[in-house]
Structures are given as structure tokens and as C-alpha cells.
């Protein structure tokens, strides 16, 4: 197989509150022989909030990030659902609106950059599944996760709106019955658990503005996974991870029931199956202890 190479947009969380996400991304990429060129010039994508304040500024900043991936001539991979949404949404809007693209490029021109639209944007989850391939992963598994019931938590922004999903992923995942993460769990030898909340929202983005709504959503998600007999949860999104891993106290109070499960990043799950160590995967950085190892 030709060596896979991508431009990595890390986002901010990987550099701050989820160091384990960065560590496990690099560890898994190394195991799989995937080369990641980090876009160190990239700015924050605005996390779907900057655009509420200043939509045009958000477009310009995201277009700039993509322009750097284009400079490398590489597909951009994201490791955060919301980074994926904001970046892919920017690409979608600029690629379908020549006026807007020209306006954005007028600004980028001031710093010697241009958004062309030549780079694809995909989440690392889909890069692994679509480009590396589940069968190839399966062959590399040295420590299958067969003793675990694992609850996939997809996170909204990778699966909705599906309009973007179809543009960026070959998987054509349906947001009402997503399968990618389930397939990956199975490829890693685990048992995937079905529950209603797997494609629902964790509430992260309204945590400060609407704390009760956000806490109930988190509570429902973890409760759903627990009731389906999951040993732990897995997610491709560090923001979902933060919510599910660090906020279960509030969530439990909000739904009137004690809920808590270990939550792994998608990369950590793959890493475990491929034989990476707990240290390499940064499992010590979780607030809800990863107690099954």
C-alpha cells in the first residue's frame, strides 16, 4: 500500500485539555505508518461560536487553515468533530459561492495566501476507515478488545449535516444509523453496543449558556450506554470526550441518577488493539479513571 500522508489540523483541545488525544493520534499514526504533517500555523476554527459573532472572520480564518493544507498538496485530517464541521462547512460554502470565495481571497491575499479548494478535508476516523481500511486494521490487531462491550458515541458534527459528510467522506454514513465507529470497534475485536443516544448530542456547545440542557444530554448519553451494558464508551471527538469524561458529576445531578463510564478517544481504542501502552496513549489524563486495564 502507498504510504498515507495527511496535513494534520490538531485544533486547540489537543494542545490543551486533551493531551492524550494528541499522544494517541501520533502513536496510532506511527503504528499504521501514516505520515502526519502538523499544520502549526493553523488557528482555532472558532468551534461554531466565532461564526455567531462574526461569520466572515470565521470563514477567513478557516480558509487560511485550509490554504496551508493546500500548500502541502495534502488532504487535511482533523481530530475533532467540530473542527471537521467548521472546516468542511467553510470549504462547502466557498466552493459553492464564487463571490464569497473572492471576498475571502481578497483578505487572504493581504498575507500572501489563497484558498483554492484543492484539498479534501476528512476526520482521522474516516481516514483510517476509508483510506487505510478496516481489513488492514484487523490484520494488525495484536490485542483484540474481545472482552469488552464498547458503546460508540459518534458526536453530532461528524455525522450532521450529511450534506458535508457525503462530500468529505467516502463512507456515506447515515446520521440516523451511523456505522463507522461500530465497524471500527468490531475491527479492533470488540463488541459494539447499540443504544439510542449513540448518534445524539452531548450538549458540549451549550455547557456555559444552558448548563441544565447540556448536563441532561450528557447524563442521558452515559445512562444509555450503561443500560446497554457497555464497559466503556468511545468517541472520535475530544469535545464529546471532555463532556463525557469530566462532567458526569453535573450530569448525574441533572438526571437524578449516578452515571459514569470510562470514555476513550477513538485513537486510544485503536491504539490499545494495536498494542500501544497506556503511557503512549495518555490514559492517565482521564478524569473518569480508565479502570479496566
Amino acid at each position, binding site marked *: 500500500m502507498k504510504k498515507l500522508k495527511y496535513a494534520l489540523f490538531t485544533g486547540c483541545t489537543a*494542545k*490543551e485539555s486533551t493531551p492524550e488525544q494528541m499522544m494517541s493520534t501520533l502513536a496510532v499514526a506511527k503504528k499504521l505508518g501514516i505520515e502526519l504533517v502538523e499544520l502549526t*500555523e493553523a488557528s482555532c476554527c472558532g468551534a461554531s461560536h466565532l461564526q455567531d459573532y*462574526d461569520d466572515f472572520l470565521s470563514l477567513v480564518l478557516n480558509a487560511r487553515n485550509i490554504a496551508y493544507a493546500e500548500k502541502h498538496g495534502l488532504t487535511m485530517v482533523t481530530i475533532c468533530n467540530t473542527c471537521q464541521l467548521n472546516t468542511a462547512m467553510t470549504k462547502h460554502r466557498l466552493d459553492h459561492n464564487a463571490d464569497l470565495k473572492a471576498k475571502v481571497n481578497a*483578505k487572504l491575499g493581504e498575507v500572501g495566501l489563497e484558498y483554492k479548494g484543492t484539498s479534501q478535508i476528512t476526520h482521522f476516523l474516516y481516514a483510517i476507515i476509508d483510506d487505510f481500511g478496516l481489513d488492514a486494521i484487523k490484520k494488525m490487531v495484536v490485542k483484540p478488545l474481545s472482552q469488552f462491550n464498547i458503546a460508540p458515541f459518534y458526536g*453530532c458534527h461528524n455525522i450532521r449535516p450529511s450534506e458535508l459528510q457525503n462530500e468529505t467522506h467516502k463512507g456515506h454514513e447515515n446520521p440516523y*444509523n451511523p456505522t463507522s465507529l461500530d465497524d471500527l470497534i468490531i475491527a479492533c475485536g470488540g463488541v459494539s453496543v447499540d443504544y439510542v443516544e449513540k448518534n445524539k448530542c452531548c*450538549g458540549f456547545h451549550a455547557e456555559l449558556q444552558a448548563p441544565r440542557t447540556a448536563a441532561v444530554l450528557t447524563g442521558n448519553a452515559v445512562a444509555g450506554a450503561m443500560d446497554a451494558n457497555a464497559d466503556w464508551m468511545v468517541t472520535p471527538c475530544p469535545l464529546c470526550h471532555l463532556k463525557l469524561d469530566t462532567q458526569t458529576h453535573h450530569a448525574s445531578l441533572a438526571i437524578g441518577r449516578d452515571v459514569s463510564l470510562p470514555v476513550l478517544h477513538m485513537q486510544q481504542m485503536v491504539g490499545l488493539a494495536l498494542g500501544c501502552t497506556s503511557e503512549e496513549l495518555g490514559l492517565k489524563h482521564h*478524569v473518569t479513571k480508565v479502570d479496566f486495564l
Partner: protein
Amino acid sequence: MDAITSQQVTFKIFRFNEETDYLPFYNTYTLNVTHEEVVLDILNRIKWDHDGSLSYRRSCRHGICGICSIKINGKAILACKSRLFDLIKIFGTDLTIEPLSTKRVIKDLIIDKKDFWEKHAHVNPYLVSDIEETPASEHLVSPHDAEKLNEADYCIQCGACHYSCPALAINEQFIGPAAFAAAFRFSADVRDEGVLERLHIVNQEAQGVWDCVKCMECAEVCPKEVNPIEKITKLHNMIFEAHIAKNNVATRHAVGFAHSIAKHGLLDEGELVRYSEGNIGVLKHVPVALKMFSKGKIVLPWNMPKADKLDEIKKLIKSSSTVKF
């Protein structure tokens, strides 16, 4: 012409009659469906051939009256517009048919949409304009101006988004995606003079746009591609542009991103929480923050990473900013 193909499907249908039942139950039917059939055809077949008491709403059968919306395996659809074969592709051949909201059932698939209409009425969903009763000429809207509605006027009030919105399911005050789309539709109309009042309504805490969790479900589910979350974003923008954004946790949370990016290129997560909540409000986050700190999840201010070519980012923020707070 394509040959008619058919598939066997098992339907589980939600049943409840307030007058005779204590609890809802499900009836199961196994039927052969053809590639031409939509869900409404199946409901009709069940009603006409099996059980005349099955109740559901339908009228236009052309995806325009918005009355036939129900849920299939949790996905809100228009019964008259959704082909069985498309649904089988997503869910397989076991399909569960339920009302849009089981909490609001009157009978079987029929619900009371009272809250939907109340929310709709709440946003002044009409043109506010001081026009003469007998104008000499029509008040024309140019095609260019009509485009500003961004297809928000395509809404058929089916309620699919409203009864799929998680923020609304938890917070009953929340106005909800369809009514927000309506608020935008009239506020974006060049003839309208009621924008400010409408923006004040959608700017209120708890009921307003700030309580949206951004799950994107309303964009996904809408059968008319109204894309309510896009309109919600535009309402946010209009609130800032009209200078009526209140200085509160929600607005500071949006603005905080711009501050942080201007300083570091990246988001300073800790500072965003402090800036949004204020020095006192932030205290409630201390217990979680301490736990996170002990796990190496908090970067202290002096260690805050910065994006390369920060001067470039700063320059773009200066030249591309379009609003002030």
C-alpha cells in the same frame, strides 16, 4: 420502465387511544412493499385492509401541507414524501412507526401541536409594516432582496425539526428551530419594520437562540431544506449587528473566541471560561477544573501554546472583522 420490485417489511406501529387505553402499545404488520410506495401508502393499506381504527393525519399527499409528519426509527419524516426503499436502505426491514412526540399523542400517530403553534406565534411571524390600506402600487421585492430570505420561506410547519430538537425536549421555554426560522424569514424581509422587536424576543435567555446546542439535527431532518440552524446563526449575527447583544455569558462566550484567537491564534480554554462567566461565575467551575488540573488537562497561562505566524492571524483579524461588541 423499471420492473416493480418489492420487499417484505415488518412494521411496528405505535397505538394509543386516551379514551380506552392506559398505556401505549404496538401493532405489528408484515407487508410486501414496492419501490414506488411511500410511508403514507402503507398507513393507508393498514387502515383500509387491516384496522380501520388506525389514526393519522394526511391531506395534500404532495409534501406541501406539512400535516403527515411522523417518526420512523427515530427519524422524523413526511409520510407522503418518504419512500420505503430509501428507509430500508438506512434501517433495514424492521421499521417502527411512531408519532412525532409520544408525550403529545391524542390518538395513535396524531399529536397535539399546540406548543409548536404557540412558539410560532411568539416570534411575530408576519410582516410588520406601516402601509396604506389602499396603496397606489404594489410593494415589490426584487429577486436580489428575495434571495435574502435564504429559503426560510420554504417552511411548511411540519414540526419535524421542532420535535427532533434536543434543546427543546429538555428546555420547554426554548423557542425551537422552526419558529427561529420564521423569525429570520420575516426579519430578513426588506419590507419588514419589526426586526428589532423580533430580535429582542430571540435574544432572551432560556427561550432564545443562545440555548441551541448546535447538534445540527434541524438541518438534517428538514424535508424542505430550510436549514434552521443556519438561520439561527444569522439571528446571532443580527443580534450583534443591531448592537442589542446583552453582556452575558452566552455573548461573551462567542466574542471570547475572537479575543483568544487574536492573542494566541488558538483558543485559550481556561480564559474563555473565565471571560464568559466573569470572575465570580467562574468559581462554580473550580471543582472540575481542579480535577482536570490534577490529570494534566489544564494549561497554565504562561504555558499557553501559540500558533505559528501569529502576526498573520492578527493582521487578518484586523482586516476581516465585521462587527464590534
